[in-house]
Structure formats: structure tokens, C-alpha cells
């Protein structure tokens, strides 16, 4: 449900940055701790961009798994549900990856190439 507000934010930012150019793809980076779900963003995106310039734009999701730096041995690891460090078997670590939630980039149609494809543009 909270994906509605953030999808609106994505659309706003992309609309500003693309300056009227046709946007082919939007790359979103989402950490597993961020609580945002790809399918839900996809759903709202399709709903909100219907009959707008962003209709048909593809969303690319790059998920970032949680990565910890072990409290005990300082080695980095991707935890399973036990959160035990695979090296020293102690529990937990500082979160160094997994909270990401940002727009990485967008791919817009190249104006020159567009003109070749559509000579009257």
C-alpha cells in the first residue's frame, strides 16, 4: 500500500529529468530491508501512467540483499534467517547493505535516432 506514494514520487522525478523525451526504462534499486515490493510498485506504476507519456515504460528492479559486517570478526556476510556469521558463528552484524531505495538511472530514446526512425519528427 505504501508503494502508491513512492511510485508517485518516482513518476514525478522521472518526468522532471526526462524533459519530455520518451523514457524506455527506469532502473530502481531496492534493498531487502527497505520494505518495498517490486510487484506493488509495478502495479501502481501501470495504473498511474495509463494515458500519460510514461505509459509502457519498463521498470527494471535491482534487489540488494542484506549484507552484514559481523560484530565479532568484522567479516562481511549475507545472513540467512539465523543471522549467524558463517566465519565465527556469532550472531549479527552492522547493516552495510540492504536499506537502498533509489532511482539509479533512466534510459531515454535517443533524439537523433528517433529522427531517423521517424523522419517527420
Amino acid at each position, binding site marked *: *500500500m*505504501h508503494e502508491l*506514494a*513512492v511510485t508517485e*514520487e*518516482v513518476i514525478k*522525478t*522521472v518526468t522532471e*529529468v*526526462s524533459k519530455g523525451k520518451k523514457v524506455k526504462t527506469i532502473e*530502481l534499486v531496492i534493498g531487502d*530491508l*527497505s*520494505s*518495498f515490493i517490486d510487484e506493488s510498485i509495478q502495479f501502481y506504476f501501470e495504473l498511474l501512467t495509463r494515458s500519460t507519456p510514461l505509459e509502457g515504460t519498463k521498470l527494471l528492479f535491482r534487489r540488494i540483499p*542484506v549484507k*552484514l559486517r559481523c*560484530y565479532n570478526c568484522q567479516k562481511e556476510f549475507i*545472513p540467512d*534467517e539465523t*543471522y549467524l556469521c558463517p566465519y565465527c558463528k556469532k*550472531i*549479527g*552484524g552492522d*547493516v552495510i547493505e540492504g536499506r537502498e*531505495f*533509489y*532511482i*539509479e*538511472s*533512466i*534510459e*531515454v*530514446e*535517443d533524439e537523433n535516432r528517433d529522427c531517423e526512425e521517424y523522419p517527420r519528427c
Partner: protein
Amino acid sequence: MKIEIVKNILDANDQVAALNREFFDNLKVFTINIMSSPGAGKTSLILETIFRLGSQVAVIEGDVASSIDSERMAKFNIPVVQINTGGNCHLDAPMIREATKKLSLSNVKYLFIENIGNLICPASFDLGEHIRIAISSIPEGDDKPYKYPGLFSKVNAVILNKIDLLPYVNFDLERFKNGIIALNKNAKIFLLSCKTKEGIDTWVEWLESENSYK
């Protein structure tokens, strides 16, 4: 053509949250964001805490619908503003900004924000608070920190409420604590019961010690 953006999607919320924090700092109002699932005891804990603080407080109540919680507060003459999100699953910084306009905060020392009962969405939205508290309760089970790591990893303290029910429920206290420590070793953990009042004084003492404005 690829255009690099690298923009935090929650930027707009975070900017308003920063303004809220500045506003609270200027007024020296210590602000507490309380998050939990529905029924864990947010309203009860806020009331028990207020009874013990003995200083001027105010409350922002967030609910999808109804004014049940704010009426509970108003009975004790506690200044309260109710936010009804109309279906929205969390409070965000602009909602808090609007709500503060309806409160007189000039003499207030503590502002409690009761977030929407939900362990997922509220974790992502900075409101401009000074500390974040999660409440869990014995009947919910010992697995909540494992199922909702986003929230439990971002709070300053976790309160385990309804501790009086421990003898009647299968609840592994060590497992619960380990789930918090795993991602958040600095989180304080308080075991208490709003019904028997056990443990509440310890929590309130800690809260007062965190308030740098008092």
C-alpha cells in the same frame, strides 16, 4: 541514452522530516515515534508513560479511521491531534507537519506520535522524530524481529509488552532478543506490562535520560 539519476525516492519525505526535526529542536520538544502492529499496546503505553512523566506532553494519534484513541487521550486532558489517513498504512512527514499546526507546543516537553498499527510501512518514513520505538507483545510471538527486520533494525528501543502473559504462551525470550540484536545491537529492550505496570518505571527513566532538552 542513459541518464544517471541516483536519487533517493523518499527524498521529498525526508526533506520535510528534516524541517520537522528543526521545528521540534527549536521548541525543545522531544519527539517519539511509536510503531507496532495493531493491538500491541501503543495507546496504553503512551498513557502509562505520560502518567509518570509529570511534564507537559502532547500526542499525535495516527489511525486509518476513527477517533477512539484520541478520545482515550482527551479523557485525561492530554492535548491530542488525530490524523485519519483514510486507508494509508503509515504516517509521513507532511502529515506530521500539518498536525503540529493544530497543537500548541510552546510548553510541551514530550511529543508522542502514535503511528499506524503496522510493522512494515512506518519503518520507511522519517517523521522528524528524535527517537523511534517499536512495541511488540507476547501474544504476537517471538518471531516478529525476524519477520520484520526493516522496522526492528531501525529503532532506538524495543518494548515487549504484556509480559504478564509469558507463563501462558509459548514465547522464547532469547529468540526474540537475538532477532533484535542480530541487526541492531544498540537497541534497548524493555520488558513490561501496561496491565500490571511491571517494568514501566524503568522504561520511563530511560526515556527521560534520552531527552537532551529537559
